């Protein structure tokens, strides 16, 4: 066995540390919150170190058990997984910081901490996995921890939403697993890169493409199979909504992206176009539904349905490099902005006792920082500069023009206008002056500032975007460049 380069064990710590922290947080409930926060900080450091490593040395493989693919399981890190690990750590850190004060105002017990740590472990493991079956296990760990967190809001509709989410996600996982079975019996391996080398376009590969794409579309809430998302994301406790909308729902898309570059590279254009069309419909449908909602958290949840649509515009535009760059920056921007909006909404809910949009009158006076966080997050969702979402959309439009398919560019712009409509609808109510007696019970500053910090990061993401974009499209992405050049 070869000696390891120094520093290359970061991939291991990114997975083991949250798991170990979950065990400690379970055994010692008193220090659970501290353990979880310490772990989130460490995850930020480890993710940055890993990103630095893959930027310097290129994509990085790690053979668990020392066997190496295809017999063993490999972990794989490149700039794409690196930046997503960083943003996951940032969102989790802010959300858990917020949760300390949030949970004190609810009946939710200390088991929140180990479960959220399992969720973080699942997310990191998924982002680093290079093995089709291992991805199935990480998807299950992720879904089950997400469902568990939704069910923490112990009311009828949250429990019903959690059950619906669980059943949808089991069925989706099984479709994915059946696809894995077909791929394994076609190519005889499970490692994604090895699959890419050996897979040929037989009917079994076609069936696997259909099954796995369908399963991941359900898990990733692509229109029209997003039915489980609005309930699960809006009735969950607010920090959970933030984690789910910002991070968890992106994970299936990430898996699909990886498959698109590995075993399914060279899938016919029609499949990409279909996914893009569903994405476009998601943007329109989700935005229109968001406009109709009476409750703030449901509005934000439908906004997520719409924003997921943008991610799937990647598939028809996959030929040009700026599509991958655009969609990556978009994921980062949406993760930060959407987490900020859900945390802000949770703050309003806790202070006002409700989240009815038309009764948000006093928010501007009572909760200025919270409202600022929501407004800045909303501006990012609209895609105004200098937000990351703006850069992401810009790159997607660029990709559309590069391929001469300006129709997708129209969708991107129209979606921005629709999102402006629903964000301003909320802000309009929030800035209304009202003479009702002022309720003195403010939110703790920690909750407002956690949301605001995320919103500020989302807004200024565009400023840091240039080096980020170079990372994703640059020489570091050799594997992607290599695999995507394998056209039939």
């Amino acid at each position, binding site marked *: 066995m070869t000696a390891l380069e120094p520093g290359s064990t970061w991939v291991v710590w990114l997975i083991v540390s949250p798991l170990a922290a979950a065990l400690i947080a379970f055994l010692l409930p008193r220090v659970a919150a501290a353990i979880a926060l310490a772990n989130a900080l460490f995850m930020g450091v480890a993710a940055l170190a890993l990103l630095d490593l893959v930027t310097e040395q290129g994509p990085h493989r790690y053979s668990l058990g020392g066997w190496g693919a295809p017999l063993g399981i490999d972990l794989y890190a490149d700039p794409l997984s690196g930046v997503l690990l960083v943003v996951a750590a940032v969102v989790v850190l802010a959300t858990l910081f917020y949760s300390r004060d949030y949970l004190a105002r609810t009946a939710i017990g200390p088991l929140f901490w180990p479960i959220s740590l399992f969720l973080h472990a699942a997310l990191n493991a998924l982002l680093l996995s290079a093995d089709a*079956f291992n991805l199935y*296990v990480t998807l*299950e760990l992720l879904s*089950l921890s997400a*469902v*568990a967190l939704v*069910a923490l809001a*112990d*009311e*009828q*509709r949250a*429990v*019903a*939403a*959690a*059950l619906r989410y*669980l*059943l949808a996600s*089991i*069925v989706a996982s*099984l479709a994915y*697993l*059946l696809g894995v*079975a*077909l791929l*394994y*019996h076609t190519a005889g391996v*499970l490692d994604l890169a090895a699959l890419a080398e050996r897979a040929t376009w037989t009917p079994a590969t076609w069936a696997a493409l259909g099954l796995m794409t369908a399963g991941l579309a359900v898990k990733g809430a692509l229109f029209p199979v997003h*039915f489980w998302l*609005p*309930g699960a994301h*809006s009735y969950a406790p607010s920090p959970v909504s933030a984690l789910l909308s910002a991070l968890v729902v992106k994970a299936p898309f990430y898996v699909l992206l990886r498959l698109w570059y590995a075993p399914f590279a060279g899938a016919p254009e029609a499949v990409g176009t279909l996914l893009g069309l569903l994405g476009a419909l998601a943007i329109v449908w989700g935005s229109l*539904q968001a406009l*109709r*909602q*009476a*409750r703030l958290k*449901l509005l934000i*949840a439908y906004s997520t349905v719409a924003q997921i649509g943008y991610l799937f515009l990647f598939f028809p535009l996959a030929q040009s490099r700026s599509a991958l760059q655009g969609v990556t920056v978009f994921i980062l921007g949406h993760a930060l902005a959407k987490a900020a909006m859900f945390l802000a909404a949770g703050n309003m809910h806790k202070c006002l006792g409700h989240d009815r949009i038309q009764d948000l009158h006093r928010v501007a006076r009572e909760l200025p920082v919270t409202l600022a966080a929501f407004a800045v997050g909303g501006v990012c969702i609209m895609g105004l500069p200098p937000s990351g979402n703006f850069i992401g959309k810009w790159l997607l439009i660029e990709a559309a023009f590069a391929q001469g398919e300006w129709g997708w560019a129209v969708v991107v712009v129209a979606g921005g206008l629709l999102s402006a409509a629903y964000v301003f609808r909320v802000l309009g109510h929030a800035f209304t002056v009202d003479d009702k007696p002022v309720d003195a019970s403010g939110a703790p500053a920690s909750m407002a500032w956690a949301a605001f910090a995320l919103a500020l990061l989302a807004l200024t993401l565009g400023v840091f975007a240039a080096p980020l974009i170079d990372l994703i499209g640059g020489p570091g992405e050799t594997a992607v460049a290599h695999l995507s050049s394998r056209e039939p």
Partner: protein
Amino acid sequence: MLYSLAGIALFCIALRAVILATAPLRAILAVNVMSSGVFLVLVALARRTPGLVADPVPHAMVITGIVVAVSATAMAIVLTQRLRANVSAPTVEDTPGAGP
């Protein structure tokens, strides 16, 4: 090959059942049958040609899958019980997903 065909038959029957199910326990039964179907495909395809030796990798994947399935089943059952136990909670104020 017989068993893999039986596997996809189970997958399809259970898929239909889970789409049409209204009672949670029925849906839970259906996803369990569905997972059995997938497992059957996973193992049986390794023996699609007579005389092949058993491949231990799908066996291990199925054992992993069985444990994941029982975890999810237990969670779903307890969620169902919570759903039945909560009566005081608010009801249909604004149902998500109910389109115009």
